[in-house]
């Protein structure tokens, strides 16, 4: 017969309430593990979803995610011409915040060249972008539906399709537009700003009195064109014929002295270091504290359950029960409490994790590790109760009731 379970039946309300409380604590621990995995997933999603092995960005930057990067769109052709590169495409990334009702939604706007690299990896509703302008594919998480119209910059964009699972490194839903539209949204000035800018350029060049008027007009026109040129990208991504040629291609492009080149792995590392490191430490700290709190709760409850049956333990000793029997009883109660708490926590997180505002990814390995930790905590938590039980003098069972 199992003494642990028989005893628990006597205190089932206290035991079950403790298990539920423990389960809630473990739910938070599991949620934190899931959020941590979600942070990693979000941070690296764009890099993972882009079928490119090489990221070319502005020189001396760690762009395009960790730092801002800006480089001419047309160098895609130079990069595409490098031996070993199958194709190259310019891409742009920016955040936009769109008012919706009394709330505002942040979108991670990705501009890509139609037919090139960097577009939505999957379409779950509607279609992909087929026109160069005013079409958008939004992530389902944004809440937009096919046919919705969104005002961005100077124009309206129609959602023609929905993708899924695409977020910014910070977890905001992504939206895809053509590179041309993205450049307009990011770089094109409004009419008043263009007028002011032109006047400033013209007046600056007008002050160069010593300059030949013909040359001055030419220079002014060039300066105006340069100031109004929106043909920039944040990075050029390249797909290679053979992924193992990555270092070779990267070294070749670096020799041009105008660009920085990262492999997808390096981009991933930059994202993880920049976006995750502090959150990771914070989450580890919270998780550690919660696991310790869980251990203290188990220890206290097991200790009080043991204190409630000191007389029975003394009786067991006097009728000849081995220490092993008494230790098993207390240890089994502790383990049972931890395992029920874990089951409650697991059931709860499985039911609720999709409702969390942040991406939460539950990995079986994390759950197994937590289960192992719970078992260790239960064993440690039972030590106090076991110590008290072993100290019980069997003679106390002989004293009157």
């Amino acid at each position, binding site marked *: *017969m199992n*003494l642990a379970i*028989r*005893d628990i*039946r*006597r205190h089932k309300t206290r035991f079950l309430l403790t298990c539920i409380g423990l389960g809630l604590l473990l739910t938070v621990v599991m949620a934190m593990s899931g959020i941590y995995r979600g942070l990693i997933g979000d941070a690296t999603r764009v890099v993972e979803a882009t079928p490119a092995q090489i990221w070319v960005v502005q020189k001396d930057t760690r762009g395009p995610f960790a730092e801002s990067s800006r480089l001419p769109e047309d160098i895609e052709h130079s990069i595409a011409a490098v031996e070993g590169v199958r194709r190259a495409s310019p891409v742009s990334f920016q955040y936009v915040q769109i008012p919706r009702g009394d709330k505002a939604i942040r979108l991670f706007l990705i501009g890509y060249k139609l037919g090139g690299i960097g577009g939505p990896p999957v379409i779950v509703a509607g279609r992909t972008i087929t026109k160069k302008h005013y079409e958008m594919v939004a992530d389902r998480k944004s809440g937009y539906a096919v046919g919705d119209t969104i005002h961005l910059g100077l124009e309206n964009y129609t959602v023609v399709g929905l993708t899924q699972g695409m977020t910014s490194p910070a977890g905001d839903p992504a939206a895809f537009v053509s590179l041309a539209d993205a450049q307009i949204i990011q770089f094109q000035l409004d009419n008043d700003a263009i007028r002011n800018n032109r006047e400033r350029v013209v007046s600056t060049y007008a002050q160069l009195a010593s300059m030949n008027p013909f040359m001055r007009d030419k220079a002014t026109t060039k300066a105006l064109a340069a100031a109004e040129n929106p043909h920039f990208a944040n990075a050029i991504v390249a797909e290679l014929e053979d992924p193992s040629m990555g270092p070779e291609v990267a070294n070749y492009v670096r020799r041009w002295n105008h660009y920085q080149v990262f492999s997808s792995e390096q981009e991933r590392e930059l994202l993880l270091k920049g976006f995750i490191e502090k959150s990771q430490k914070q989450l580890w700290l919270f998780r550690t504290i919660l696991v310790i709190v869980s251990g203290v709760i188990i220890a206290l409850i097991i200790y009080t359950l043991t204190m409630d049956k000191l*007389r*029975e333990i003394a*009786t*067991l*000793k*006097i*009728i*000849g*029960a*081995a220490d092993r*029997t008494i230790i098993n009883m207390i240890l089994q109660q502790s383990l049972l409490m931890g395992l029920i708490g874990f089951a409650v926590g697991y059931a709860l997180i499985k039911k609720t994790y999709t409702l969390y505002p942040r991406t939460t990814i539950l990995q079986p390995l994390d759950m197994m590790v937590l289960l192992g930790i719970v078992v260790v905590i239960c064993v440690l938590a039972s030590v106090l109760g076991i110590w008290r039980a072993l100290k019980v*003098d*069997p*003679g106390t*069972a*002989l*004293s*009157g*009731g």
Partner: protein
Amino acid sequence: MEVVRVENLTKIYGRGDAQTLALIDANLSVESGELIALLGPSGSGKTTLLTSICCINEPTRGRIELDGVCVFDEGWTGMDVRAVRRQKMGVIFQAYNLIPFLTVLENVALMLTLNGIGQDEAQPRALELLEYLEIAHRWHHYPSEISGGEQQRVAIARALANNPKVLLADEPTAALDTERGKIVMSLLRRLSREKNAAVIVVTHDVRMVEGFDRVYHIADGRIQN
């Protein structure tokens, strides 16, 4: 056959000026099937003698033999005293000391499972004992659901479960009225005969020792026949 032999057993509590002589050169011999009583007022040393025989109270000096095995000879002999209790002794308590979270049947079967007997065998044997003590109809009740007299019968059934050579009863009637106390004492008398166990009963109530084979009076730590 002699199953309990106590020689010159002395127990001193405390040290120096604070020392108390609880038991002084106690000698006792009990044979199988014998029913003896240790009679004395509170503080006389009878429980000290009982707990020493029960191997839960270490005497200061002397010698104890149980069923021919020396368990104490100026010190514990290294025997697994809990195994000795489990295999050779049955203990009946003043307050019954049934395990409150086990049913009547489970309380009796516990003693058997502690001795390595499986549930399948332990439960029918426990039920037999309950029938022998005429309490089988209460097998599924918890101790809190039965009377004091019934609880004491269950406690006796538990003490008998391992076919003990020695049955130690510590004030077994103290929590019962006189009539029920006499019933329990007559039951112990019957057990000593039918189960051939040496039964040692500690009591302070002289009315309860009628029909005992021997009665030892204990006063100030000394045994007197």
